[in-house]
């Protein structure tokens, strides 16, 4: 669809009446003068017909009757009789009447054509206005993909002005990660197909990505040849965001249900095995070797219990929050991993500030630290430095809230930017083999429950890679945390 700007033809018929009659008079005068030319001598009415037709076309029907009358008089006076004088014989009157009827016929035909053309122009103007004022982006392009029209909606959606977009190739709007999208659409078009509500991503002039739904239809000329395509695109970013949020919420709810049922199924047998091992230890007939095996079994069982608590989360401490020293809690969480750190050749650097006490659920906070430390260790299979810092701090967003900031940093492989936004989602893991995808999700919900927040920064640049987790915990915690 070519959004040509249709110039509204200059039409005298919309002007004042006296101007129209003046112009009609002008046409007749010109016809009169032309009629004095030699070729017209034998056809006295020839140019008057033209004058009447033009008047009808340009000035409307009223002036055309006027110009008919005027022409009749002029023809009678100047041309019907040798010399210039009036003639009112019967034949003269018949001639005049014939002339007048032919004129009126011409006038009405001309008038009708003019009306039809005006209606069509009005229609086109109306369509053009609709295209221009549409909220959707409407553009047209040649079969080669060169943009030939660009409405205001397209300016808003893509950020390019009409002048910037015209003549450019549509691949201008294609994000680099989708190189085949536009060629696919163009090849469909060339085979005469439409593309309906195709959902895809485009890139704006400012580089931001937008989600759009696009419909592309082939455009044919009057002879039916395919000459290009029209595209209507709608911004569906908001809808996509809403869908994504819903998807995440549903995932969370499903996760909660799943975890609750798994926790129940696992914790009961764990309880039984724990009791059985305890009873076995009490058995006096157990020899030294048996005791050793038993002790390993107990250690492993403890690990299972630990993992169950950590990943199935839902460790909802029933007691109420108490004053805890954050640095000491972090230290005790770290102590669990001493052996692992040595094995991996990881150096731990710690920097505690004194007096980092907050009101919190100790077990849950320790679980957060434990998760973060374990992640850092997993990120450094070939050694590195684990940095732990605890300092008194303020809420970075709201300076009035005092609290404690904990930084846990590693020099590991880092997390790719595309993955960073998903880190805190349930079942998302970068550790294909060992991750459950629940650790960070649980950690985040614990931190949020304490009205704190957790942030991540990471770099994958070789030589400078690493990940930093920052946790802010407010000094005093709301009472609602207890449950």
């Amino acid at each position, binding site marked *: 669809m070519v959004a040509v700007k249709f110039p509204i033809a200059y039409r005298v018929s919309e002007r004042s009446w006296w101007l129209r009659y003046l112009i009609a008079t002008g046409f007749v005068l010109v016809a009169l003068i032309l009629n004095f030319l030699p070729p017209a001598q034998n056809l006295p009415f020839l140019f008057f017909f033209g004058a009447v037709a033009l008047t009808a076309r340009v000035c409307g029907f009223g002036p055309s009757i006027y110009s008919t009358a005027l022409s009749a008089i002029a023809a009678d006076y100047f041309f019907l009789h040798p010399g210039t004088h009036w003639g009112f014989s019967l034949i003269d009157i018949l001639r005049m009447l014939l002339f007048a009827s032919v004129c009126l016929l011409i006038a009405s035909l001309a008038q009708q054509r003019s009306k039809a053309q005006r209606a069509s122009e009005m229609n086109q103007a109306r369509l053009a206005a609709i295209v221009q004022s549409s909220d959707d982006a409407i553009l047209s392009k040649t079969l080669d993909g060169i943009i030939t029209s660009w409405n205001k909606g397209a300016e808003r959606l893509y950020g390019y002005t009409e002048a910037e977009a015209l003549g450019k190739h549509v691949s201008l709007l294609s994000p680099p990660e989708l190189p085949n999208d536009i060629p696919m659409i163009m090849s469909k078009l060339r085979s005469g197909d439409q593309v309906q509500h195709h959902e895809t991503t485009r890139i704006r002039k400012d580089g931001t990505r937008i989600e759009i739904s696009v419909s592309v239809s082939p455009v044919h000329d009057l002879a039916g040849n395919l000459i290009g395509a029209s595209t209507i695109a709608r911004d569906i970013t908001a809808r996509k965001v809403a869908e994504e949020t819903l998807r995440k919420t549903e995932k969370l709810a499903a996760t909660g249900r799943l*975890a*609750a049922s798994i*926790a*129940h199924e*696992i*914790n*009961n047998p*764990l*309880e*039984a*095995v*724990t*009791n*059985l091992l*305890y*009873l076995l230890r*009490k058995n006096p007939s157990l020899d030294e070797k048996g005791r050793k095996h038993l002790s390993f079994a107990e250690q492993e069982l*403890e690990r299972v*219990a*630990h993992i169950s*608590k*950590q990943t199935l989360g*839902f*460790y*909802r*401490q*029933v*007691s109420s929050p*108490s004053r805890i020293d954050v640095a000491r809690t972090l230290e*005790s*969480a770290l*102590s*669990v991993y001493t052996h692992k750190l040595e094995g991996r050749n990881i150096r731990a650097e710690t920097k505690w500030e004194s007096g980092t006490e907050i009101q919190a659920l*100790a*077990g849950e906070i*320790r*679980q957060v*630290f*434990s998760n973060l430390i374990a992640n850092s260790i997993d990120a450094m299979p070939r050694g590195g430095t684990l940095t732990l810092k605890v300092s008194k701090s303020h809420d970075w967003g709201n300076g009035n809230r005092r609290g404690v900031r904990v930084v846990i940093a590693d020099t590991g492989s880092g997390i790719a930017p595309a993955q960073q936004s998903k880190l805190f989602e349930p079942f998302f893991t970068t550790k294909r083999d060992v991750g459950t995808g629940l650790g960070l999700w649980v950690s985040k919900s614990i931190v949020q429950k304490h009205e704190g927040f957790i942030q991540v920064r990471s770099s994958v640049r070789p030589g400078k890679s690493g990940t930093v987790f920052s946790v802010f915990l407010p000094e005093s915690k709301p009472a609602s945390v207890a*449950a």
Partner: protein
Amino acid sequence: MKKLTVMVVDDEPVVADTILEILKEEGIDGFGFSSGHAALNWFSRINPDAVIMDVVMPGISGIAAAIEMRKQSPNCRVILFSGQTSTADLLNEARSQGHQFEVLEKPIKPEVLLAQLLGHNDSGGVASGQWPVASD
């Protein structure tokens, strides 16, 4: 020291049975039940010093049974234990009705359970009944 009498209620027989055996090792008389109803039926006849009871069970919940037992025998010690998250909600509901209970989370180390039962738990907090999340 007076010999204790304890009721153990859990819908998983292996859990109830192993706890009874552990109690027996310590010279404590125990009676096992697999539902809150069964436990309530026998409660007045046994007149226990303490009840160790699961929270989430088919039929009447451990918390509802515990409230009823408290009514009948205010001095009886009730220790609830649970492997489920919904416990916290049930407890909140009980708390809103004025009932406070000690709750341990499964799995509980037998040492911790015994300490709780015999009353020589030094911390006094329920949190000490948990498996340590990150210690050892």
